[in-house]
């Protein structure tokens, strides 16, 4: 189906199902209940899930397939965001041209950075990409202020030209990003009993684009081009003695993943039309590395899972404060309650990084293939149990 093998097609269907029903899946708790704070089904976070999913899928095409670890991918994300906001300022508030421009500009940017950085491999490549990204960050923060808005970031203003749209709305406000009139922030709320589910236009646009990106990534993984990229990771010596030039292959992979990052950046700006230099900082580049490794580098679904997990931690886990902990452990005797809360407190709320770090360490040590490998191990264990049950009735062979 769609040029995919059965297994890949099933995976695509799962991803489509998950993104389509995300407003339900992420809101399992009734709105008024104590557990409602664990609901992740609000537009802002759902958008972030899929946008960072796109970012990680693209990063995985470079890192997962070729093994080239870029430490500067946030630069492309930032460039994408700036391009999109400029499009909103100059052309119109339609997100489509903004997204297209952000992909093109970040692709060109990736071509230049990749051309230089890919002269080296291994740690030197990583350092070169890091240096480029930090340079971009520093430029955006200071020298390029007329283009990037410097410290305050690039924002829309009432006197922007917007040649194909209105500079301001009838009521004198800055218009909001929309897709042919469909505002990105518009939502439809559905109440079922105590539950409230929010369906947001921006989320569904981003989700649609993520599904398309995911489909494209599967095609790349299964193509001769994808096989060549894996060959580069495996043995560059044999690669060149087989008559293949590794450079254009790695550069193509680098540009493709840069365009994915730019797409994510453009979408980010489409949901919330501003762009700041901090989007290009090295911590943002490091984040996508963590997402990919946590989920499983080189696997198809891994990066999406990793992105979801990290964004969930960042937004939900970080909300647990000491008051909530005291509520939870209120049933314990006073002294013990305080003790338990003191013990747990550093790992939640502002300390969510600590928990994430521990999870990351455990994954890298015990599941080098990431969460996907964990899932496979569990599935294999279940299968073994099942077959044991099935065979226990049969006569056992003499051993």
């Amino acid at each position, binding site marked *: 189906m769609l*040029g995919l093998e059965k297994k890949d097609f099933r995976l695509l269907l799962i991803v489509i199902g998950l993104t389509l029903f995300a407003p339900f899946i992420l809101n399992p708790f009734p709105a008024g209940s104590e557990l409602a704070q664990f609901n992740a089904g609000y537009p802002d976070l759902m958008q972030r899930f899929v946008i960072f999913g796109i970012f990680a899928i693209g990063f995985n095409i470079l890192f997962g397939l070729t093994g080239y670890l870029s430490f500067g991918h946030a630069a492309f994300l930032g460039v994408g965001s700036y391009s999109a906001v400029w499009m909103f300022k100059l052309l119109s508030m339609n997100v489509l041209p903004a997204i297209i421009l952000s992909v093109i500009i970040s692709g060109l940017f990736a071509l230049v950075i990749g051309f230089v950085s890919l002269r080296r491999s291994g740690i030197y490549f990583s350092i070169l990409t890091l240096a480029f990204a930090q340079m971009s960050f520093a430029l955006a923060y200071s020298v390029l202020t007329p283009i990037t808005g410097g410290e305050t970031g690039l924002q829309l203003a009432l006197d922007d030209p917007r040649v194909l749209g209105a500079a301001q709305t009838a009521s004198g406000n800055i218009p909001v990003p929309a897709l042919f009139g469909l505002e990105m922030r518009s939502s439809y709320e559905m109440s079922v009993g105590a539950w409230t589910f929010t369906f947001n236009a921006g989320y569904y646009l981003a989700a649609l684009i993520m599904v398309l990106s995911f489909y494209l990534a599967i095609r790349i993984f299964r193509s001769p081009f994808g096989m060549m990229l894996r060959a580069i990771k495996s043995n560059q010596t044999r690669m060149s003695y087989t008559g293949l030039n590794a450079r254009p292959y790695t550069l193509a992979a680098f540009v493709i993943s840069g365009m994915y990052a730019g797409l994510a950046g453009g979408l980010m700006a489409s949901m919330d039309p501003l762009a700041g230099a901090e989007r290009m900082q090295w911590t943002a580049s490091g984040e996508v590395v963590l997402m990919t490794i946590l989920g499983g580098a080189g696997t198809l679904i891994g990066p999406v899972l990793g992105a979801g997990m990290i964004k969930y931690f960042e937004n939900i886990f970080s909300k647990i404060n000491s008051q909530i902990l005291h509520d939870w452990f209120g049933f314990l005797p006073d002294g013990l309650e305080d003790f338990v809360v003191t013990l747990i407190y550093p790992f939640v709320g502002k300390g969510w990084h600590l928990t994430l770090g521990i999870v990351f360490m455990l994954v890298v040590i015990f599941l080098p293939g990431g969460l996907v490998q964990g899932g496979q191990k569990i599935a294999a264990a279940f299968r073994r149990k099942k077959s044991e049950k099935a065979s226990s009735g049969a006569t056992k062979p003499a051993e």
Partner: protein
Amino acid sequence: MGILEVKGINKRFGGLQALGDVNLSVEENTVHAIIGPNGAGKSTLLNVLVGKLIPDSGSVMFDGQSVLGRKPHEINQMGISRVFQTPEIFSDLTVFENVMIPCFAKRDGAFRMHAISSVMSEKGIRAQAEEILADVNMLEKRDVVTSSLSRGDKRRLEMAMCLVQDPKLLLLDEPTAGMARADTENTINLLKEIRTKRGITMAIIEHDMNVVFSLAERITVLAQGTPLVEDIPENIKGHPKVREAYLGEAQV
């Protein structure tokens, strides 16, 4: 005029003259062995031929074109394939993928962007890969990830990867180094088979005199970076100069 013509090659590493005025001519459709004691410059010569090293002076002509200054992948595209001392294969990929890659390289050249088509839809490439795997008796291992293959199988796979490109010249760098007796015999038989079946021109660097004398049709003896003699195997065996060079090294 041979298919490979090496003329007046010099290569220095600092104070060491690795190759001094090397001339070599490999005739089409022969197995040409290059032997010599350790440090004779055999590997340096091979690295010059495949574009890994650039000599200080001299010329290397292959099939009427100069090889010098070209990158390894360009030289491969001219028709020179190389088998390494320790098999260089794509160890994270399956056996089948390993042989498909040279098929793609042969058909599409050094780079071609087919990012959307599926590998599985490439029927011609698959048939070609299956054929060569059947030839080296590895078809039943097609879905094995190659890092788990035995050393002998890795060698056969590497050979298959080179052969599927139908090279005009196959360079072999000590193909039996570190092998057990039985594996060595197998490799010799495999090479003989390739020779009779496909008539491929080969240049082979080897330490094992048993291998050399059972395969070679012409032998060049290198010592201290210079060719001593070049002749047919029968004349090399008792040659006084060769004895001198090898004194204490091996029974010639």
